[in-house]
C-alpha cells in the first residue's frame, strides 16, 4: 500500500480503495464457503477443513481500506478476533495467511495460531482473540519505533464493545501521556456479539472518550471509505510528526453474524442490513461519477477471485502439521520441559 498524506484522494486512489474492498469481500465469501462446506447439515464447530470459531468482516471493508491506504508494511497494525479485512488491506500475503486459517504447516504460525492469532513479521501485523488486549502491545511497537528514531506508526484496531474494557482506557491514557505514535481505531459495528452499543456504553460515541484521555477523537458516522480515508490520513500524519495519538471511531456495519453459525436472532434489522452494504454503495457512486468505467468493477472481482482461489488452493494442498511436533516453538532456547 502506498503511504498517503492528508492529500485529497485521486481517482486512482478511489479505484484502489474499491479494489481493496472487493478483494476483502471476495476473500471473506470464500472463507465462509470453505468454513461451512463440511460442517453441515448439522453444524459441528470442530469439524472440517477450517474448524473452530470464524469471525468475518463483511461490511467492515471500508475501515480496512481507508486506514491501510496510509500505511506501509513497516507500520504496525494490531487487530482483533475479526482480522481478515485489516490483514488483507495491510498487505499480508494471502497464501500463508490462508494456510494458517486452515491450520497448515505452511501457515504464518505453522498451524499453531489459527485465524485469531495471525502474525506476519514482514508487515508488523498481529491479532489477538482477547478483547481490547491488542492495544497495549501496539503501544509498545509505537514506543520502539519512536526510540528507533523512525516515523513509523502503530494502528490499534478494536471494537465498540472493547472500548469498555480496562485495557482500552489504560492504553489511551498511556499513549497520550507518552505521546506515542499510535492511531486507535474503534470499529463500531453496533453489536458486541448480541448486545447493542446502547446497552453497553455510557456515552453516545467513543470519540467523546478521547477527550478524557487528552487526544483528538473523530467519529465517522456513515461507513464511508472516503471519510475514513480522510480521518485516517490526518491521524496517521499526526502520529508520524510526533504529535501523539488519535482515536477514530467508525460507525461500520457487521453484515454477517458475530461468528459464523450465529443465528442473529437478537438482530431486528436482519432483513434490511444488506441494503447498507458499503461495497455496492461505493461501486454505484464511482460508476455514477465516472471513476469506474464499465467493466472495471467486474475486472476487480475477477482479479480478486483469482488471487483468493490461489490462496485457498495453496492452503488446501499444504501439509498439515506433524502431531509429534506439538511441543516445538514454546521457547526459542531450550527444550520445553
Amino acid at each position, binding site marked *: 500500500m502506498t503511504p498517503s498524506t492528508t492529500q485529497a484522494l485521486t481517482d486512482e486512489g478511489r479505484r484502489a480503495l474499491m479494489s481493496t474492498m472487493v478483494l476483502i469481500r471476495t476473500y471473506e465469501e470464500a472463507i465462509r464457503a470453505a468454513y461451512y462446506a463440511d460442517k453441515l447439515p448439522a453444524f459441528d464447530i470442530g469439524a472440517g477443513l477450517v474448524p473452530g470459531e470464524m469471525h468475518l468482516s463483511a461490511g467492515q471493508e471500508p475501515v480496512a481500506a481507508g486506514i491501510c491506504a496510509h500505511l506501509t508494511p513497516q507500520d504496525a497494525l494490531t487487530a482483533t478476533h475479526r482480522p481478515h479485512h485489516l490483514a488483507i488491506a495491510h498487505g499480508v500475503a494471502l497464501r500463508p495467511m490462508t494456510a494458517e486459517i486452515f491450520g497448515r504447516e505452511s501457515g504464518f504460525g505453522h498451524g499453531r495460531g489459527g485465524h485469531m492469532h495471525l502474525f506476519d513479521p514482514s508487515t508488523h501485523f498481529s491479532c489477538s482473540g482477547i478483547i481490547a488486549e491488542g492495544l*497495549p502491545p501496539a503501544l509498545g511497537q509505537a514506543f520502539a519505533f519512536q526510540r528507533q528514531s523512525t516515523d513509523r506508526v502503530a494502528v490499534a484496531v478494536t471494537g465498540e464493545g472493547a472500548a469498555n474494557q480496562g485495557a482500552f482506557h*489504560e492504553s489511551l491514557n498511556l499513549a497520550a501521556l507518552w505521546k506515542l505514535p499510535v492511531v486507535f481505531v474503534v470499529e463500531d459495528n453496533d453489536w458486541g456479539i448480541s448486545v447493542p452499543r446502547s446497552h453497553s456504553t455510557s456515552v453516545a460515541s467513543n470519540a467523546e472518550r478521547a477527550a478524557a484521555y487528552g487526544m483528538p477523537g473523530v467519529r465517522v458516522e456513515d461507513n464511508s471509505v472516503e471519510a475514513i480515508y480522510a480521518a485516517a490520513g490526518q491521524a496517521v500524519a499526526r502520529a508520524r510528526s510526533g504529535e501523539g495519538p488519535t482515536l477514530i471511531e467508525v460507525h461500520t456495519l457487521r453484515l454477517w453474524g458475530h461468528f459464523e453459525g450465529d443465528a442473529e436472532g437478537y438482530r431486528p434489522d436482519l432483513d434490511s442490513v444488506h441494503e447498507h452494504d458499503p461495497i455496492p454503495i461505493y461501486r454505484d457512486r464511482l460508476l455514477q461519477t465516472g471513476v469506474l468505467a464499465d467493466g472495471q468493477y467486474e475486472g476487480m472481482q475477477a482479479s480478486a477471485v483469482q488471487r483468493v482461489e490461489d490462496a485457498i488452493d495453496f492452503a488446501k494442498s499444504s501439509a498439515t502439521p506433524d502431531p509429534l511436533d506439538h511441543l516445538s516453538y514454546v521457547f526459542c532456547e531450550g527444550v520445553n520441559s
Partner: protein
Amino acid sequence: MTATLPRNKQSLALAVEPAAGKRRLSTAKAMQEAISQRMDRDQSVFVMGEDVGSYGGIFSSTTGLIDRFGPDRVLDTPISETAFIGLGIGAAVEGMRPVVELMFADFFGVCMDQIYNHMAKIHYESGGNVRVPMVLMMAAGGGYSDGAQHSQCLWGTFAHLPGMKVVVPSNPYDAKGLMSAAIDSDDPVVFVFHKGVMGLGWMAKNARSIGAVPEQEYVVPIGKARVAREGTDVTIVTVSLSVHHSLDVAEKLESEGISVEVIDLRSLVPLDREAIVDSVSKTGRLIVVDEDYQSFGLSGEVIAVVAEHDPSLLKRVSRVCVPDVPIPYARELEYAVLPTPARIEAAVRDAVAT
C-alpha cells in the same frame, strides 16, 4: 517485528557461573548491577514500572539506574499494568529488551491476560516467527505482616502456564547471574525476587541476603538447579527464601548427625528434573519446602517428577508449604502458615525417624 534476525552472540559470550570473589552485595544491589551492566552494553535494554525511577523500585530493584541512564531508559509508569506490560511486549517484538517490573506478584490479577495470553503465547502462536525478549520481574513473599494481597509467592501459577520461563534466585550471586541471563534470553522470563532476600534495611533480613558477587558480567544458566548443601539422609528441594531457612536447619541438624542435602532450584521453568531425581536417588527422602500455596503447585510438581521417574525411590516424602489459606495479617497467624525453620526442622526429623 524483528522476527528471524540472528542474535549477535559475539558480544554476549558471558562467563557462566564464575568464582564468586570477595566483593559482597545485597541481592537488591546485585540485581541493580546486572541490569546496569546490560544497559551499558545494549541500548535496547530499558526499565519500566511503577516507582522504578527516582524511587528505585519499592524493593530497591532499580536503585541508582535513573541517575545513570536517565528517565528515557528508566520509566515510571502510571498505575496501568495491562498497558505497560503490553507496551513491554510490543517493544520486545520490535527488537527492544524491556525489563518490566510488576510491583508485587500479587498484582498479576489486573494484568494477567497480557502476561499469559500474550507475552507467553506470541512466540508459539507465531510458529516461532515472533520473539518476545522481555523480563517481567516481580517482588513476592511474606513474613512482615503485609496481609493476604501483598504477601504471596505465586511462582507456581506462572510456572503452570506454558510459554514463559520462571526464575527465582535465592541469593545475590544467583540474582545477578539470572537477571543477566534473563535479559540475554530471547524468551520471556518471569523473574521473581522474594522481598526477604533483597537485603533491605527496613525488613528483617537473612544473613545470606548479603553475599559475594563477581564484579564482571556473568550468567547463571536458566533451568539449572544448584546443590546448596550436600547431604546423605534427606533431600530438601526448595527455592527462594526457603533455601536459607533450609540451610539454617541443615546446619543445626548436622551436629545431631542428620545430613540434609539442600537443592536450590533457582529456576522453575525449565525445571531441573535431573537434579531432583539425582538427589532423591541418593537420599530416598524428599521434603519440598515452598512458600507458595500447597495444593496444585510447585511442591506437587516436584514430587510428581520423582514419582513418575521411579516411585520406589521415595521412602519418605512430605511438603512444607503455605497451606491453602489467604495469608493472615496477625504475626502469630502469618508465622503459623509460613514454611518456617521450625516447620522444616520438624519435617526433617519426621523424615528420618523411620
